[in-house]
């Protein structure tokens, strides 16, 4: 499977772990992150989410984020899959796997990746809740914004 994917298929964490770890026996740690569809958001009872992506740019942005993370944690290898389409409560919307000889780098690269996803990847949540629906809007996507990148790095190293 590819290390980077934007897909309407259910996500496969074990498959991605195997993909990232199979090329090396130097790793001492794998950190993973799974983002889930939550039942409550800003006081609203969520029914389900629909994720929309500008797929070719989203794939390119995920690869850019991995390249950024590897500039800081050079011994890590990272995989990211993001889901699109309709997701029910409790389903995984994103999985991230980071492998490294050392756990600190694996944890940090994993955290950096999710923070950057939320900053720059062209994917949108359409929240359907009891009584209506709303497009969630977070960050203005600007991969060249060094302050945003520094914020993600700081959170990752906290």
């Amino acid at each position, binding site marked *: 499977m590819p290390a980077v994917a934007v897909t309407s298929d259910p996500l496969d964490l074990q498959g991605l772990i195997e993909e990232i770890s199979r090329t090396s026996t130097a790793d001492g740690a794998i950190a993973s992150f799974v*983002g889930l569809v939550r039942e409550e958001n800003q006081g609203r009872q969520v029914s389900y989410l629909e*994720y*929309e*992506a*500008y797929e*070719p*740019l*989203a794939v*390119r*942005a995920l690869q850019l984020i991995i390249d950024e993370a590897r500039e800081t944690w050079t011994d890590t290898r990272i995989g990211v899959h*993001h889901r699109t389409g309709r997701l029910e409560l409790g389903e995984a*919307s*994103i999985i991230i796997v980071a492998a490294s000889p050392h756990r600190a780098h694996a944890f940090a690269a994993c955290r950096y990746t*999710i923070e950057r*996803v*939320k*900053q*720059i*990847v*062209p*994917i*949108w*949540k*359409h929240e359907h809740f009891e009584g209506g629906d709303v*497009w*969630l*809007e*977070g*960050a*203005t*996507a*600007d*991969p*060249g914004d060094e302050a945003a990148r520094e914020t993600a790095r700081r959170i990752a190293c906290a």
Partner: protein
Amino acid sequence: MRVTIRLFARLRDLAGSGELVRDVTNPATVETVWRSLVDEMPDLRAYERTMSVAVNADYAKMSAKVHEGDEVAFLPPVSGG
């Protein structure tokens, strides 16, 4: 010249379509394409200060040149993850 405009999330809902084909003057920039779009659909203007743009599925600036057949995308603030 002819360009394809891609719109996403609430911008797509406001426009009623995620993909539009429009003729713009040559030479043109992303800004030229955006101006002609908001002339046609003034509701979109609310996103002018917060959106990002892309040309042919790569991040771009409003000042980027646009060529015949290019795909110009306007992206509301993102909310993935």
